[in-house]
């Protein structure tokens, strides 16, 4: 599997580590439902069979955290971008697979 790092170019996946679901957003710790929101954030996953947005860390290269869109049935990668560049608008409204 090769991940097209937006900085380094395509690299073998073994240079990266995967952290999983990138659609999750760390909840507001001050919200009244923080306990259950954190439970969902830390533990529950959509785990889709199909396109999956996920976080990969390019530890063997530029040390960027990337948000990669990858199909979990075929491993085909359709997008990879810097996680830091996620616009705050996109964070909330992205449709979930």
């Amino acid at each position, binding site marked *: *599997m090769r991940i097209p790092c937006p900085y380094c170019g395509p690299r*073998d*996946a*073994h240079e990266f*580590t*995967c*952290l*999983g*679901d990138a659609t999750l957003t760390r909840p507001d710790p001050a919200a009244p439902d923080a306990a*259950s929101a954190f*439970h*969902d954030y*830390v*533990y*529950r*996953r*959509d*785990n889709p*069979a199909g396109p*999956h947005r*996920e976080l990969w860390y390019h530890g063997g290269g530029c040390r960027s955290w990337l948000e990669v869109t*990858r199909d*979990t*049935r*075929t*491993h085909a990668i359709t997008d990879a971008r810097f996680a830091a560049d996620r616009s705050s608008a996109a964070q909330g409204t992205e449709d979930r697979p």
Partner: protein
Amino acid sequence: MRYSFLSLLANAVSGQRLWTPAWRDAAPKPSYDAVIVGGGGHGLATAYYLAKEHGLHNIAVLEKGWIGSGNAGRNTTIIRSNYGLPGNIPFYEWSMTLWEGLERDLNYNTMVSQRGILNLYHSDPQRDAYARRGNAMRLHGVDAELLDREQVRAMLPFLNFDNARFPIQGGLLQRRAGTARHDGVVWGYARAASRLGVDIVQNCAVTGFLRDGERIVGVETSRGPIHAPKVGLAVAGHSSHVAHMAGLRLPIESHVLQAFVSEGIKPLIPNVITFGAGHFYISQSDKGGLVFGGDIDGYNSYAQRGNLPVVEDVCEGGMALMPRIGRLRLLRGWGGVMDMSMDGSPIIDRTPIPGLYLNAGWCYGGFKATPASGWCFAHAIARDEPHPAAAAFRLDRFATGHLIDEKGVGAQPNLH
């Protein structure tokens, strides 16, 4: 036909014509008292114990492909009860006990082979962690021994003791552990369940749930709707997917684990060995192939196959541990899609949805659990209460914080 030496003999003289199907390949009925989704080891064992222990005979196991096509048919066959946490030990030990009587119970040779498992350690902290675990086992009445380097050398002289990056210091040995013939377990349970009247329905994928308000009252399948007041899920790597059809979001990710077999050779490896300084474990099948594996690939996958870096990583471990296997050839590699739960331990529980029961999250270790998982899941379905041996495997433990995290790596499934 009951299997015995006599039946073999009778067939030998009849030209093998007397055999009958090991299990009935049933067509689905419109309704059952309970259906189990998933014809892997766990689903079939659940059905068997539901029939045998709880008297439920009007039940079906629904399998989307052929039985045993999932992880039951692709695991490295290790059975053991060398766990360290109180939530786990009694359960796996109960499984071990059931393994020890399985062949006679099922009248099927599942080739349970108590050849022992040796977990090697390579540092003092690792020894201490094994000591903690081994002592916990002993307190639960489970056999365990701590070997030092020389004892390991005497047992397995062919390991790399003298030129190692991480020298072997000793190992934790469970002699009662070993292997069982994975496919045989599936077929043995299927045959035994079928004989008790269970319908085993292959090529029948569950595609949705029948609901009566909140309650689940059956399933939609590729072969039509099937009604049942109780539905048990035992779909291993696909738990999230199937539970999602019922509106449940689980603390599970699906990951792929690869395994490998070498060309067949004369006996070389007497037991099960795990490397403590790399991702590698190995045993030898009765057919002669070295069966080995290592770490999971590390990313969500439903592809039932893996990639090259893990093949390399596993073989690097193999060569570091036993460099005499260098000229043996890797014959075949494959992958299985597993439920990696968020604390590395399974779930056997009712769900918040009435009528729906869940058996999931077995990670890479559910083969050994097959008998007890079936036993305890049958109990939960039949009696609507957890079996004491599986009482810790609750779905709400992530919310309450009563985690069962043997490795202590936290909510990161690809590290368990």
